[in-house]
Structure formats: structure tokens, C-alpha cells
């Protein structure tokens, strides 16, 4: 069984008026089936309001489905009395780096998760050292998080999740508030975790360039999963993507337009190198 499995997942945001009567109901995620196996690098794409963050919060039991079910590492989130046991398996990194760092010193923040789980002191230090090493932040361990750059803060946040030794990391638009350098740093760290430690990564983003290296891509629109496949399969359907208000990487777009104009090119070109090779063959 995969690490994350969802069947007919549905979630409604319900708005209540002053008297506690249901006033408004908005379905953010609807009829979503999802299977993720251990060690995969998954990307979830979608426009603002497509329900991708809501879906992400289900994988960590921060939200419990209105209908349908989701299993994380074999546990049904709706039936688990101790939700933090699920959260320990599936860590989550959020968008705003400032609002998820709890400690006043980098190493103390990384130790926060293990402290909550009741890990003995010596083991906490071991985990903290290892996690900081894994994201390349060991040199900053005694610094105050306020004095770090955005990319460094996000790497600290990732280390904080790693210290809980999860099987899966969910990153909810971790690069949305970062500059291009910070984005590169964070993505590099995430890819390394996936390759070296074999951690399942679920990356939620709306930057197309970030999903090229993923094993599998899900595209969401208005609460539904509308497309899924490898990046190459997804990006060969340029028109369909455009109908979901998503762009394709610039190179892919260029290749697609050249093809429309009559140049003989294969579908789904993802990198500049591929395009050059295809043009010069």
C-alpha cells in the first residue's frame, strides 16, 4: 500500500452566520482519488483557489475530509484518535517562512518537533545535527532565524520537519515568497532529501519549472484532479493546460509554437537542452 491514498475525498468550507446557521458552503476539494507510493516525487499544480492547499492539509490531518477518506501510511485520518501520530509520518512545510519557525535559535527550532514527540534529549541532538546537515544549515545553527534569508528560513523549516523522521514531506508552495536564488536553494534541498533519504515529496506549486523533475504531476482545477501523468505527458497538452489558466515552461511553449508553425518536433519538450538537440538532430 502506498504512503498516501485518497478515495472520493471531499471537503466543504462552511461559513456560519451569527446564529450558528449554515450560511454558505464552498466545496474546495471534490471527488479526489490519489495514490502516492513511498519514495516518489509528486507535484501538484493548480491555479489560485483550485483546492491544492486544502488537499495538502488533508495529507497531514490538519483538515479532516467531509466525505470520502484519506489514508496516510495506512492510517485513516478520520478514525485516528491521536492525530499527531499521523503528522509525525507526514511533515508539512508552509508558504510563509516567518510564520512557521517557532524557536528563537535555529537549532532549537529544529528540535521543536522531536521535543513534542517525546524523544529523549540525546536523540533529539542527534536528529537535529543530522537534519541541519541534510539541508546544509549546520553553519547557522546558533543564529537567530530573524537574521536569515527567506531561502535559509525555508531550509530550516524543512530541517524541522526532517527531525521528526517522517516518511513523507508535503511542501505547500514553499517557494512562493522567495527570490529566484532562494527558490533554487530550497528545491535543491528537497530533491536531495528525495534522492538520498528516499523521502516521499509532495510539492505544491504554481511554478511550472519546479515540476519538471517530478515523477508524477497532478493538475487541479476547481477542486478536481483534472490531469495526471508524468511531466512530459502533462506538458505535451499545452492547450488543455491553458484552459486551466496554467502556463507551461517557456521552452515547452516555444517548442509547441514552433510545432504549430510547422517545425518537426516531438511533443513535451521540457528543457532547453532537449529543444536544442531536437532542432539540430
Amino acid at each position: 500500500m502506498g504512503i498516501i491514498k485518497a478515495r472520493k475525498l471531499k471537503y466543504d468550507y462552511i461559513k456560519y452566520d451569527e446564529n450558528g446557521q449554515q450560511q454558505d458552503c464552498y466545496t474546495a476539494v471534490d471527488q479526489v482519488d490519489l495514490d502516492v507510493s513511498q519514495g516518489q516525487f509528486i507535484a501538484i499544480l493548480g491555479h489560485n483557489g483550485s483546492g491544492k492547499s486544502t488537499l495538502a492539509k488533508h495529507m497531514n490531518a490538519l483538515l479532516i475530509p467531509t466525505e470520502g477518506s484519506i489514508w496516510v501510511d495506512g492510517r485513516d485520518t478520520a478514525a485516528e484518535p491521536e492525530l499527531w501520530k499521523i503528522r509525525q509520518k507526514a511533515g508539512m512545510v508552509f508558504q510563509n517562512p516567518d510564520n512557521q519557525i517557532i524557536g528563537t535559535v535555529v537549532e532549537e527550532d529544529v528540535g521543536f518537533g522531536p521535543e513534542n514527540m517525546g524523544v529523549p534529549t540525546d536523540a533529539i541532538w542527534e536528529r537535529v545535527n543530522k537534519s541541519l546537515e541534510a539541508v546544509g544549515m549546520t553553519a547557522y545553527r546558533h543564529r537567530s532565524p530573524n537574521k536569515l534569508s527567506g531561502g535559509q528560513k525555508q531550509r530550516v523549516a524543512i530541517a524541522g520537519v526532517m527531525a521528526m523522521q517522517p516518511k513523507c514531506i508535503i511542501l505547500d508552495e514553499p517557494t512562493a515568497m522567495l527570490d529566484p536564488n532562494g527558490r533554487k536553494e530550497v528545491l535543491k534541498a528537497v530533491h536531495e532529501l528525495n534522492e538520498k533519504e528516499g523521502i516521499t515529496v509532495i510539492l505544491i506549486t504554481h511554478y511550472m519549472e519546479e515540476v519538471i523533475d517530478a515523477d508524477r504531476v497532478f493538475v487541479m482545477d476547481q477542486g478536481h484532479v483534472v490531469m495526471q501523468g508524468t511531466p512530459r505527458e502533462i506538458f505535451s497538452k499545452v492547450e488543455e493546460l491553458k484552459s486551466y489558466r496554467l502556463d507551461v515552461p517557456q521552452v515547452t511553449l516555444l517548442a509547441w509554437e514552433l510545432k504549430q508553425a510547422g517545425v518537426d518536433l516531438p511533443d513535451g519538450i521540457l528543457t532547453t537542452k532537449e529543444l536544442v538537440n531536437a532542432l539540430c538532430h
Partner: protein
Amino acid sequence: MIRDITIGQYYPADSILHRLDPRVKFIGTFLFLVSLFVADSFWGYLLATCFLAGIIALSKVPVKFMLKGLKPLFILLLITVIFNLFLIPGTVVWELGFLKITQEGITQAVKIGIRLVYLVIGSSVMTLTTTPNQLTDGLERIMKPLNKIKVPVHEISMMMSIALRFIPILMEETDKIMKAQMARGADFESGNLIQKAKSLIPLLVPLFISAFRRADDLAMAMEARCYHGGENRTQMKPLVYQGHDYGAYGVTLVYLAAEIVIRTVM
């Protein structure tokens, strides 16, 4: 400009005082304050002065920093001394109209003055040598027995340390909002006190909204990292008494005992 404000006045240095357990410093400071009220004679004050001077020398913090802490208290100090000087009845030494200074008044004023100054210096030695974080940790441990009467000690100290972490972030945010509003013609500088206070309202509203949003995000991030209150929680940096901590307790207790002896003998 607003960013220059620092909360807590930790002075980083490597001294025996910096390395002491925060609990020792807390209780030690408290005992020192008690001793100031025990001391009542010249010899008592002399001993307190020597003790304080020794502590300052050990802390490796420049005396200048200690005296800085006295500045905001100067007016309070002045008022207390003047009141004591003029209002205590006794043998008159100097008289001008309705103002008279008495022998007893002078001694009392000097005593109160010394006590207040030492009190402030004594507690600033603690804050100068302890990081805010260590202070909260120490407080949490000292207050732990209160858990039995259902005081949420862990939660209070968690709130304190989160507040400490967010002070610089909120300061930065205030600065940003202020600049954004100044760019659109807001005026925070001129006018009288009431006008100035009024002009702060459009600053406070967005600041509060963003603080609430941050709190919401942070709560979710904490939950995502398995936070479920203080039960079954372990600590990464637990406070454990070392040899020098017991030594410090010993020295402080000997000092307090000496003050009590002086008080009873003299």
C-alpha cells in the same frame, strides 16, 4: 528607526555568570533583593556593595551598561529621595520657611537611595547575563510546582518565548506599514499628542490584522509539527544543575547569612 529598539538587554560575553543556570540567577537575584532590606547599618551596606562589585567584576559586563539601566529610574529615585529628605520628622539640621531637613531624614534618604540603586543594578546584572530564552526556561522550571494547582506553566512560558520571537518580526512589519502609509501622505511626526495618537490608528488596524493572521498560521505550523501541549514533552536543552551552580547558591546564602548576622549584632 523603530527597529533599533531592543527588548531585553542581553550583553553577550563569556563569564562564569553567563554560564550559570538561569534558575540560580533568578533565585540569587531574589535573595540579593531580600538582603538589601535586611542591611540597615553602615557595615551591612558595605558588605552589599562589596558583594555587588564582586558580581559585576565576575560578569565581565562594562559598568557603563549597568548604569544605563538606572537612567529611566532617575526621576523616581529623585522623588523618593526628596520626599524622604524633607518629610521625615526629627532633629532639624536646616530650615527654610516650611522646608526642613532633619538628621533622620538624611539617613533615611541615603538608605532608600542606595537600596533603589542596588536593586536596579542587581536585577540588571541578571538580565544582562541571561538571554530572554534562558529566562523563560528558568521561570518555567521554577514555576513548575504551580502545575499542581492547575496553573498552565508550560503554556505561559511557550507564549512568552513565542512573543519574544515575534517582537522583531512585528517591529519590522510596523516599520513597513508606516513607510507604506507615509508614501501615501500619512503624517506621523507633527501635531500634538492627541493628533499623533490618532494618526496611529490606521497603523494599528493593519498591524493587528496581520498579527492575527500570523498567529493562525503559526498555530497550524505548530500542530503540523506534533505540538499537543506540555504533556509527554521532552526538552532539547533541559536545565541541569552543575557544580558551579551549587557553588553560586552557597556563596549567595553565605552572603545573606552574613547580612542577617550583621543586622542582629549591630
